[in-house]
């Protein structure tokens, strides 16, 4: 039990008559990189929404380090150590790159009900934000308005923001989506460096990346987990091949 940092217990979500996730139970181990794969529309993003608290679940529970956080808001879960990125990049485009990250540091560094003193000049916030930018390789872009970054750099920034919340677990929704090959390789290299230092739940379509990075893989099809296991097991699993991988090879 103590091994499992995040436990999903029979999560379900339906939009009207459309059941998007059903009976999803998963245990994510501490410091593992756990990938979730599945065809388009399988419910992967919805599941991330349910875990992070952006979308309430119809039923089921989410446990973080043994504590039931199902009733908590997105913000409260974040403060508990659940950080997430979005399939569609979510940053503050009008703020400088550095302030995007510094705000995440500010969120857990004392009260934000301060009405005096220029937040953008707080050395402690900025120093930590800079360190995060260096980790993702955006150090040189710190003063640029975030909206001017390239698509790939925005995804790197989002990772830096997530790291700045000092997460216990990172939920990443397709960090490679829409990237060129080179940009994608940079992110894969970054994930490889983060691997082992953070617990990571990775939703990703890039199978090369998934199979080279993941410690374990879960396969979501039509809202249900049909298999969980090491990459080799998943590759050999006939149900997975039929439902998913085979489909890709055929295409």
């Amino acid at each position, binding site marked *: 039990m103590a091994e499992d940092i995040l436990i999903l217990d029979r999560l379900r979500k339906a939009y009207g008559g459309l059941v998007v996730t059903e009976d999803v139970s998963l245990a994510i181990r501490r410091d593992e990189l756990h990938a979730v794969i599945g065809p388009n529309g399988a419910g992967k993003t919805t599941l991330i929404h349910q875990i*992070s608290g*952006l979308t309430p679940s119809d039923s089921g529970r989410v446990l973080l380090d043994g504590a039931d956080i199902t009733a908590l*808001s*997105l*913000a*409260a879960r*974040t*403060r508990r150590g659940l*950080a*997430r990125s*979005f399939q569609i990049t*979510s*940053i*503050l*485009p*009008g*703020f*400088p790159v550095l*302030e995007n990250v510094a*705000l*995440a540091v*500010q*969120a*857990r560094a004392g*009260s*934000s*009900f*301060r*009405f*005096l*003193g*220029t*937040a*953008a000049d*707080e050395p402690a916030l900025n120093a930590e934000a800079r360190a995060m930018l260096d980790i993702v390789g955006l150090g040189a872009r710190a003063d640029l*308005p975030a909206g001017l970054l390239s698509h790939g750099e925005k995804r790197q920034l989002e990772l830096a*923001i997530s790291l*700045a*919340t000092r997460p216990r677990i990172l939920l990443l929704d397709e960090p490679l989506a829409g990237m060129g090959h080179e940009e994608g390789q940079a992110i894969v290299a970054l994930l490889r460096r983060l691997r082992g230092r953070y617990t990571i739940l990775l939703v990703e379509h890039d199978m090369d990346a998934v199979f080279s990075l993941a410690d374990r893989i879960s396969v979501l099809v039509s809202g249900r987990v049909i298999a969980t296991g090491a990459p080799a097991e998943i590759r050999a699993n006939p149900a997975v091949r039929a439902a998913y991988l085979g489909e890709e090879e055929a295409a």
Partner: protein
Amino acid sequence: MSGAHPTAGPLRDRRPRLAGLILAGLATLPLLGALGADSYVLLLVTRVMIFAVAAISLDLILGYGAMVSFGHAAFMGIGAYAVGILATHGIEDLLAQAGVAILVSAGFAALTGAVSLRTKGVHFIMITLAFGQMAFFLAVSLAAYGGDDGLTIARRSTVLGAEWLGNATIFYYLVLAVLAATLLACRALVAARFGRVLRGTRENPVRMQAIGFEPFRYQLTAYVISGAICGLSGVLIANQTNFISPAYMAWQRSGELIVMVVLGGMGTLIGPLIGALAYLLIEEWLAGITEHWKMIFGPLLILVVLHARGGLVGAITRITGGRHG
């Protein structure tokens, strides 16, 4: 009204200098001998500054928090009624009146804001409008304080028992001091941690939640601060006119405040001051030319809003060679 926010990123630009210039100009105005103590110009500019305080308070939530309050005049009305009602009962001290005005405005903002902020977009506009109208009809129903017709206040508020504010020049400088303090306080606030959360929420509330902030707490606090400042402007307007009436709370007034903010440039603080100045001066000028002035004024406003991105402040910074806008 959407898209590029001139203040979205760093706050370092030339606007503080613009604000300093305008305040210095306002401070020297009464010294121009030709005006005379009770001059029409002095009265008009006093009125402009009072509305500027109200418009700046609105900019705090509208420009920095993306909260389009269509009931902001209610706070001005509450401040004015605090003066009128207390004066009727013999409490004429300015500080006591201002204290009550600020407390009641803040309380009204806390209650109505807590409800309104559960909604978004058009719903937020409509519900703040509804609360504004509620305050309006409450004022109409106050028969003891003039009801529909309003109430004349015998004399201006007193300071430590003295009737200094009866002097137009002293009153002018009091209003200027409140204006300057409002500008400075709001400028500090939006640059501080609190303001950064507010500005971040304006851009992307989901991202702010995903780093651990609950937007509601910050938005509600901003709403209460804004309401309290606007209530203070009501204390000043009641003193200038020696008269209060429900008309202060009419939805048209709320609309005028929005126009001042947008016309001057929202999310700039100095913009609403310029907006109030332009709005009231043009209104005064057109009303002198024709009684159908609203038919000219309306289209004129739409032209400015559509063509001068960032309002008049945006136009000024472009003309003076600012890189912003």
